[in-house]
């Protein structure tokens, strides 16, 4: 017995001393111009193709460093020039000419030409099934190269928001690139040095047309588990952990060597009601469900307070969102009255579907079910695994926990509110809404356009099938000294080329 204990001790000491050796070769701190960035990523979906679904965040961050995009998102959230220096629509707002920078080159030395841009846009459109029809508003067959540095993009209908619709995900690759088993050259601020099982190493490219990044090297690592991502920063193995869970953010609070970057209103898990099926075809039932929600409590439980209660607006951060609405607060008595009026006063039973795809979706559904109980509705919560939720529940069931990720209102409308959309999940089918939306998007005056879009958004809020109870913040954990991380919504978060380090 004693021998065994001695042996165990020897083994442990041996392991510890070996580790010490390992440490000296390993933990050389990163030089001050290297950013170690850890983000969401699954090796199973890792891809070199910047025109697909962009579902793997670690890939998307790499693309945003390697490739130029036509237009980008400014710090104020407005569209700003990137590869396109300027743009001009024709009178009908269907033909937009984009003037490209003349000093952009791919990493292999070739200049970036209009033909490369048109080729890339057409390729994105060809992969519509994977990227949710991102360029569905455009007729790319009719679009054309005007000259080497001018491309004309044609929209199917008059469309005043074309520069914004082309923002941040129009990654430009050399014309003819079709084999993406390995990375193809890009014209962005960084070039790829190596890309292995977990990490991509990128180095600053001298001669990029834009403001030279202060970072020389960026290491992007894919780590699937949110807790593990946070641990990477907590233990000093990384400088930034993108998209951590609220619980980990709480854990890091009070540590002076760390800071938390909050990207407001990034995530929402609205409860989705099918307006063409019982019992949700009755507007009074929908109204009752909206009045049953205790919004602050849902935000507290789901996002641990890292978020804001919302008022059923689907794009509350959009510049067109209506302002000064009377907030919809919880009113159990009124909700019960609506149910009684709708003939559902003596006990309504529904099934509320949810999943664990995004952290907190299950918590939100469970809590809402208990809130519904108080207006006399029995909601049975049914869990579906993440791998089949979006194919068997999303867009099909009558009542479920949905997901939106901070996209502009016109995108929400295109995906979910137009009669002809295959993903119109609430069956919001109103020809007059479609017509009004078309008219608004073709309105050249921004003030007028936003006013009309705001009215439309308010109409969905009041009569539609979404209970948008709150939004969660995107949470990035950084070591102190990391500055300039993007805080904008949508794809703007991917552009980390101007991040600075002070140590």
């Amino acid at each position, binding site marked *: *017995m004693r*021998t*065994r204990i001695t*042996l*165990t001790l020897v*083994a442990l000491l041996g*392991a*510890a001393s*070996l*580790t010490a*050796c*390992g440490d000296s070769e*390993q*933990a050389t701190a990163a030089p001050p111009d290297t950013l*170690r960035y*850890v983000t969401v990523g*699954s*090796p*199973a*979906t*890792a*891809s*070199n*193709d910047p025109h697909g679904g962009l*579902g793997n965040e670690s890939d998307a961050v790499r693309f945003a460093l390697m490739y130029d995009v036509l237009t980008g998102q400014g710090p104020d959230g407005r569209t700003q020039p990137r590869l396109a220096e300027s743009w001009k629509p024709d009178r009908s707002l269907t033909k937009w000419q984009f003037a490209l920078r003349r000093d952009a080159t791919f990493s292999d030395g070739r200049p970036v030409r209009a033909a490369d841009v048109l080729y890339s846009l057409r390729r994105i459109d060809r992969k519509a*099934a*994977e990227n*949710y*029809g991102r360029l569905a508003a455009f007729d790319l067959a009719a679009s054309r190269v005007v000259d080497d540095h001018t491309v004309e993009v044609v929209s199917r209908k008059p469309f005043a928001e074309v520069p914004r619709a082309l923002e941040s995900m129009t990654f430009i690759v050399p014309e003819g690139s079709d084999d993406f*088993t390995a990375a193809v050259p890009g014209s962005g601020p960084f070039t790829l040095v*190596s890309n*292995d*099982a*977990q*990490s991509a*190493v990128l180095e600053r490219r001298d001669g990029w047309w834009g403001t030279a990044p202060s970072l020389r090297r960026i*290491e992007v*690592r*894919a*780590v*699937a*588990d949110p807790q*593990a*991502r946070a*641990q*990477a920063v907590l*233990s000093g*193995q*990384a400088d930034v952990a993108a998209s951590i869970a609220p619980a980990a953010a709480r854990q890091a609070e009070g540590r002076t060597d760390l800071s938390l970057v909050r990207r407001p209103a990034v995530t929402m898990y609205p409860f989705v009601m099918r307006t063409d099926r019982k019992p949700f075809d009755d507007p009074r039932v929908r109204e009752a469900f909206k009045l049953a929600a205790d919004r602050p409590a849902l935000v507290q439980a789901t996002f641990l307070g890292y978020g804001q209660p919302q008022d059923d607006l689907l794009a509350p951060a959009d510049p067109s969102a209506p302002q000064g609405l009377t907030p919809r607060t919880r009113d159990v008595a009124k909700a019960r009255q609506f149910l009684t009026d709708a003939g559902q006063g003596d006990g309504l039973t529904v099934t509320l579907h949810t999943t664990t795809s995004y952290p907190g979706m299950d918590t939100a559904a469970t809590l809402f079910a208990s809130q519904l109980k108080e207006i006399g509705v029995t909601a049975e919560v049914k869990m579906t695994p*993440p*791998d*089949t939720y*979006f*194919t*068997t529940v*999303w*867009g099909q069931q009558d009542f479920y926990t949905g997901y939106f990720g901070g996209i502009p209102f016109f995108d929400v409308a295109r*995906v979910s509110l137009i009669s002809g959309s*295959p*993903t119109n999940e609430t069956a919001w089918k109103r020809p007059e809404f479609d017509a009004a939306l078309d008219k608004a998007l073709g309105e050249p005056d921004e003030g007028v356009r936003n006013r009309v879009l705001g009215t439309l958004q308010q109409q969905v809020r009041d009569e539609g099938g979404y209970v948008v109870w709150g939004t969660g913040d995107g949470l990035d954990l950084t070591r102190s000294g990391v500055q300039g991380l993007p805080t904008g919504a949508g794809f703007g978060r991917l552009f980390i080329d101007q991040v600075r380090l002070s140590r």
Partner: protein
Amino acid sequence: MILRALVRAVLLLVGVSVMVFAATEALPGDAAEARTAGRATAAQLAEMRAATGLDAAVWRRYLEWAAGLLRGDAGVSLISGRPVADVIGQRLPATAALAGAALLVTVPLMLAWAWPAGAGSPAGRLVAAVVTATAAVPQVVVAAALTAVFAGMLAWFPPISLLPADGRPPGLSVLALPTLSLALPAAAYGAMLLRGLVADIVARPYVRDARRRGLPGWRIAAVYVGPFLVAPALRVLAVVAGGLIAATAVVEVMFGYAGLGELLVGAVANRDVPVVQAGAMLAAVAVVLGMLAADLVTVRTDPRRAMT
């Protein structure tokens, strides 16, 4: 005998490939649906299935996959379009390093635990109890406990195991916690299987006789007990190694370690059949080879062979 073992190994591999294929097939949904997350129209789905060959009958897809494998072609990922050999090849070294390190720790630990646990003294019974308890603890719990102690309280090792960004092999500090998380339950399980055997051998007359003659314990272990343990220990090891390789999936995800296990978990969720098949076959080959080696050693060390 050797021929029979070989045939059995091949049959086993074929069986595994059919079962894994059927199991992935039985899951609801396919790669085209996973890739489009509910947003594609029926026509778009049909087009994607035709492009990736997913529209063919199950048996046909299986046979094509098997024929490809025999030609040395593991196919193309249904999700990213990259060659499966590349996808797996990028991840294999990390998992091989982790599983290898875990086995290196497992073997001596398993023997060190089996010996006193089989000896039957009061102390031995205590060891047996501890070993049985450890064997029953899932890797997740072991990993969490090890992280709390060695990364949290003592701060000897990092709490997660990121691979070096420039492709260098992982250092020992990176491997330490995942290795122990795999090795401790595996060694305990192996020791539990071996314990009874040790008890049997120790009870044999010539061992008792050697004890009476006052030979030292290490000599009894090395000369009178050890040789009879080699073959069964190898067989136990093959089984333990199988469990250990399967457990890498859980441990890799927990430590953010970029190996095959993490890849497999994601590939199953995305119904990426060629990647799942290749990963499962690799694990199966490793286990079958281990068992084959155990069989061969049994043949060589079988006392009956010396007699005939």
